[in-house]
């Protein structure tokens, strides 16, 4: 189905099922522990052996020798596959730059160099410790601050929507900035972060002749099927992936990872199915991470707060051939100003690969831009909400001929401020105390693109009148099963309980997948297209000629005649398949989602510990398909924002070249006690240029801007501005009031 003009009124607009806060239909499976996650699929193939990955012990160098004799002789060991079994690195998968296996060269710490297969997990683990590896270490570049001054300009795309050229100039920034009466000119940093999803990378691989099946945990089935075929040098039709349940991904599972490759190689060598879950201590260094940035923001404004000049630059690092963290991308679109400059620099680092993590680009970019806006508001003696509101734009500020499809950022600001009680904030910092606590309020804007992309689905009316939906779309904990069932139920006029949804199988029609918050809108739009086809087939089967056939209450009706939907499948199931093709709708309009985040914090005046007291997000993200699932996405993202603001940081050892805190004890993410009351408000602005669903993504929007809102609240509480994330207590402790 080509989507080449704004959607008119359609069956989704009935909102009998779509738009309702339905509990997730896969909830009972999850709460009873019966949802089949990759590592637990004991029933899919018999005789599964256990694989255990060995990671490189050095950050950069070459393997001189590996001695696997003791491991091979250890109890229960089936086989040992090493990277030296392959003369050179296996080909790269899509969007990746670090080879997952093969060859003697080590490009980063904990790169997979061997996989040990045994009858039990414990045997594989014990044998893995017996492998002796000698390396020739070579010096590497591990310190972003040291490499940054010589980093060249580099443009790029995050692969998840956000993108920016190496340098972009509109108007005359230098002149306008020099002339601006009020300015901010500051440098900020954000750290390397790890996805640290609960479910590690996990795969069971099984070969049948030259065909391989992988039961795995992956966000993007079609990408990864192609990638795996490329890595293994086999035709794509010989690869099947099945990933119905995913225990979190956050971008870490957009790609094929070492678990899948090692399981496939090991199963081939062992001549039996092999299952692998990557050990937690390998997760941070073996895989990808959100790269650290050094960002420089310059804002120039008139005395009444109108931005005249905006410049934002970001320097990040990556392995050779890697891409930059696109932290300036939102700055190109968020606020009006006639003179603009954005650029990115990219240093070569020999740390693990930097790549997409939830809202790549915008998440670290807004942590900085929105802190700079807070600094500008203070310099102007202006309310931060007002500053943002008066610099709103309804068109792409770089291409004024391109309007936003829908943009209600100002409504987010006003609604959020009202509900939060923003007017009670004392704009002068370090004024409000409750006993030992310094109290502050902060806010920030949120922005994240709305990506349109092709997505297909199949729907079948079964003989018994039930509907079966099949698409390779994934549910990474987001609620995809539920919103697809809601879409089918709405379109076909049946109760939700009549719909079965099957996901994540590469034999199903190719979908948008889960990434860049594009999954919900595009995947449901793909199913919408398939449903439109099924409606035609049903109408034809039942002998309706009229164009306006109604599907409601399990019946098909037109012209005074009515028949049960199930009648249409009496002779056999009716199947329809189609896809959503957004044509150039994403280019004719600038499409994005918007938020305003508000936070109240308390900072212990003695110890500097920050405790969040309240959080509120007001979101403009098109039609909300399921407010309960969407709220769950946003509060999860807000929680991730607390982590980014207060504690998350992969600590780099610049001598050995690795992330030191590579487990869940030392890489701290928020716990329940860190998270207070969270309120989410969805504004109701369906976007008819987004798809027939009129929906947009929300899962990444919820993170964008949260960190800055917290940082700004801390400043309001303490009067101490910390520009290096995360804002741990040591960074402001000695500037807090004297207590001893």
């Amino acid at each position: 189905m080509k989507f080449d003009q704004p959607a008119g009124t359609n069956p989704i607009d009935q909102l009998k099922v779509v738009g309702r806060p339905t509990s997730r239909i896969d909830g009972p499976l999850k709460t009873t522990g019966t949802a089949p996650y990759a590592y637990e699929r004991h029933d899919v193939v018999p005789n599964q052996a256990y694989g255990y990955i060995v990671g490189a012990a050095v950050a950069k160098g070459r393997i001189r020798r590996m001695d696997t004799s003791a491991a091979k002789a250890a109890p229960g060991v089936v086989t040992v596959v090493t990277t030296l079994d392959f003369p050179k690195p296996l080909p790269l998968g899509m969007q990746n730059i670090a080879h997952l296996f093969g060859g003697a060269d080590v490009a980063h710490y904990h790169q997979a160099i061997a996989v040990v297969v045994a009858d039990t997990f414990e045997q594989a683990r014990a044998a893995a410790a017996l492998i002796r590896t000698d390396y020739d270490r070579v010096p590497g570049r591990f310190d972003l601050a040291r490499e940054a001054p010589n980093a060249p300009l580099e443009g790029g795309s995050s692969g998840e929507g956000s993108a920016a050229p190496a340098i972009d100039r509109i108007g005359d920034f230098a002149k306008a900035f020099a002339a601006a009466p009020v300015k901010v000119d500051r440098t900020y940093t954000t750290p390397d972060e790890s996805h640290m999803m609960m479910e590690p990378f996990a795969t069971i691989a099984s070969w049948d002749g030259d065909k391989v099946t992988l039961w795995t945990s992956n966000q993007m089935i079609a990408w990864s099927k192609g990638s795996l075929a490329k890595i293994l040098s086999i035709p794509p039709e010989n690869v099947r992936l099945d990933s119905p349940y995913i225990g979190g991904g956050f971008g870490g599972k957009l790609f094929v990872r070492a678990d899948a490759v090692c399981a496939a190689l090991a199963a081939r060598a062992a001549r039996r199915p092999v299952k692998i879950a990557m050990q937690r201590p390998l997760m941070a260094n073996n895989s990808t991470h959100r790269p650290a940035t050094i960002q420089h923001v310059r804002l120039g404004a008139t005395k009444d707060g109108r931005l005249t000049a905006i410049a934002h630059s970001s320097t990040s690092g990556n392995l050779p051939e890697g891409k930059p963290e696109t932290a300036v991308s939102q700055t190109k679109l968020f606020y009006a100003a006639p003179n603009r400059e954005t650029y990115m620099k990219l240093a070569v680092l020999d740390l693990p690969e930097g790549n997409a993590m939830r809202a790549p680009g915008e998440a670290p970019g807004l942590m900085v831009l929105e802190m700079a806006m807070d600094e500008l508001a203070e310099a102007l003696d202006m309310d931060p909400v007002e500053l943002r509101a008066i610099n709103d734009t309804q068109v792409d500020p770089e291409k004024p001929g391109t309007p936003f499809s829908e943009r209600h950022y100002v409504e987010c600001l006003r609604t959020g401020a009202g509900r939060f009680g923003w007017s009670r904030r004392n704009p002068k910092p370090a004024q409000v105390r409750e006993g030992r606590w310094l109290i502050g309020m902060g806010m920030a804007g949120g922005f994240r693109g709305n990506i349109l992309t092709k997505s297909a689905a199949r729907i079948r009316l079964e003989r018994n009148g039930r509907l079966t939906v099949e698409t390779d779309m994934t549910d990474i904990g987001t609620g995809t099963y539920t919103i697809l069932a809601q879409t089918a139920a709405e379109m076909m006029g049946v109760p939700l309980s009549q719909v079965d949804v099957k996901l994540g199988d590469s034999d199903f029609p190719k979908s948008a997948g889960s990434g860049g918050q594009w999954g919900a809108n595009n995947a449901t739009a793909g199913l919408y297209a398939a449903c439109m086809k099924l409606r035609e087939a049903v109408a034809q089967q039942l002998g309706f000629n009229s164009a306006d056939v109604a599907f409601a209450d399990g019946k098909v009706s037109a012209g005074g005649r009515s028949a049960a939907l199930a009648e249409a499948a009496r002779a056999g199931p009716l199947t329809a398949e189609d896809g959503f093709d957004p044509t150039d709708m994403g280019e004719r309009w600038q499409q994005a989602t918007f938020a305003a985040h508000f936070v109240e914090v308390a900072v212990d005046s003695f110890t500097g510990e920050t405790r969040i007291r309240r959080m509120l997000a007001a979101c403009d993200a098109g039609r909300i398909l399921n407010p309960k699932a969407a709220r769950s996405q946003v509060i999860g993202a807000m929680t991730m924002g607390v982590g980014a603001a207060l504690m998350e940081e992969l600590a780099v050892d610049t001598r050995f070249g690795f992330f030191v805190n590579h487990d869940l004890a030392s890489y701290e993410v928020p716990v329940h006690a860190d998270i207070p009351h969270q309120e989410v408000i969805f504004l109701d602005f369906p976007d008819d240029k987004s798809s027939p669903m009129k929906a947009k993504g929300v899962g990444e929007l919820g993170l964008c801007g949260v960190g800055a809102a917290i940082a700004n609240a801390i400043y309001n509480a303490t009067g101490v501005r910390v520009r290096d994330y995360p804002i741990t207590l040591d960074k402001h402790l000695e500037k807090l009031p004297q207590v001893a």
Partner: protein
Amino acid sequence: MKSFTYERATSPAQAAAIVARTPGAKFLGGGTNLLDLMKLEIETPTHLVDVQDLKLDRIEKTREGGLRIGALVTNTALSADERVRRDYGVLARAIQAGASGQLRNKATTAGNLLQRTRCPYFYDPNMPCNKRKPGSGCSAIGGYSRQLAVVGSSDKCIATYPGDMAQAMRVLDAAVETVKADGTTRAIPIADFHRLPGDRPEIDNVLERGELITGIALPKPLGGQHFYQKVRDRASYAFALVSVAAVIQKDGSGRVSFGGVAHKPWRVAAADAALPQGAQAVAQRAFAEARPTEDNRFKIPLATRALASVIAQAKAPRA
């Protein structure tokens, strides 16, 4: 994990004798730290002597008016005990500040004293670490040391003892009661129990080979106000950046032990004596010999401020 054999001991002296005579043997209590370390092959015992049947799980009054805590009393049970909560509040609070409910259900009193450092380099078998592999070097020195020791460290090791419970035991002047392989018993003052790393950082404490902790004796109650203030990067389930265990009397005198700063609970007599003069005076004495790294220099002002917080609470009118 290396393969190991396993047996359940029937008496404390028998357990001690087995471990003393069996090379590579270790005691197994709650296992909350040992099993993790075995999975990473940081600990590689060849034989485990499970002590959980030894009936060392009671809390009893002593003739001196104190309490004897069996080695196998769980952290949950200890922190919930009415007498502990009433008379040794610092201990109950310290335990509650540590780990999670699940871990406290399983962790034992003796095991808690014996938990090993959480230095990230100790936990990564690819990295040099004198505590894990004597003579291999210390990669924490000059590396990521934000969590590590500021005082009492050596050129060989800057690890900290990570626990909370022992900080309270230290201000209470508890004694660690043990039985040796030959059946003799002794009581080790908690002040002498944990070692400083010196040239032998692989040795955490003064226990002899096979010596088994049977219990902890607490002297009679101290009175005063009891505090345990733990400062960390998140609100729960994290090791202390700095903690302060303190008992403060009405006249402002008292005792204070600092956690998260050294290879053992850090209590200095001269610092205790300075309590009436305030946190600054205490910290000057407690950290006179401090040798912090660039990463963890903040722990000294943090410890000072955390103690100031405790003193302020002690002075505040009680609700």
